[in-house]
């Protein structure tokens, strides 16, 4: 399991716990003091990222598309921050 965290400049803390196989995410948990509205979407977002490749720009696009599709609002962090933190956790994953 890989873990990483980043403090977003002028924003909040994003923490990621990740399990991966090769360069693919098998399980991901994103925690922190950011805001996502509606809140319940976090579980769905984590599910939607399973199977994704550990590629920062592709992950950011995936998070962006998810937010757009669900008309969600992310405050205190950007999709790029989620993506960056996920890739960092992936680099630490065995």
């Amino acid at each position, binding site marked *: 399991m890989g873990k990483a965290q980043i403090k977003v400049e002028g924003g909040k803390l994003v*923490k990621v716990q990740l399990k991966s196989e090769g360069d693919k995410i098998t399980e991901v*948990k994103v925690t922190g003091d950011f*805001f996502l*509205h509606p809140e319940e979407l*976090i579980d769905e977002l984590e599910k939607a990222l399973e199977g994704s490749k550990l590629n920062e720009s592709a992950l950011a696009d995936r998070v962006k598309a998810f937010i757009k599709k669900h008309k969600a609002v992310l405050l205190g962090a950007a999709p790029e921050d989620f993506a960056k933190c996920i890739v960092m956790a992936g680099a630490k994953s065995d």
Partner: protein
Amino acid sequence: MALDEAIAVARSKNLVPDTLRFFRWEPSAVSIGYFQSMDDEVDTAACDRRGIGYVRRRTGGGAVYHDRDGELTYSMFLSQSHRLVSADFQESYETLCSGLVSGLRLLGVQAEFKPINDIVVGGRKVSGNAQTRGLNVVHQHGTILVKVNPKLMFAVLKVPDEKIRDKMIKSVEERVTSLCAVLGREVGFDELERALIRGFEASFGIRLVPGTVTEFEDKKAEELRVEKYSRREWNFRR
């Protein structure tokens, strides 16, 4: 937390008007944000030893130590169609916090809103706030620090490394302040509450009328306490 959600449900069913609630935590407790991990943020064994509660909020944001004698908590519930509510979350934080800012200024505290969700005095945080929306209701709650005790705060919050505990305490002392520290005198909860009520009334152009918890809210709160907020499934779900 259970009563907060119960009031939101009652408001969504139009059983109660827009509502402002003040309360203190008894016993003292730590609340964590919706997206935080309880195990990551809170030393629950230390809480248990000290008789301090811990609970996950329905709102995002960070972990807060709510000292029974050191802070006042408020919650407000507005219909999403209320003129004070904007579709933009950041804008709504600023508007809804303006009531607190104006109340604090009535006490002689030069409070200012600081995005995303804080109120600061001289750059130091005195209040944190969090918002959620659902069922056409906007629910914002937050805390106003009356007295602050960073040592106790870090006795119940997890620190990444024991070696930096003192550094973190020092950092909180530098970044956070309280009404007593700013004013250099004791500030009573009644005095603060009265000032905040006047602040909300002036800032929002409304008149607040005293009310009590309705039977529906009371029952719903008990149900939510038993089925959600006292359960491990909720509090440790992340």
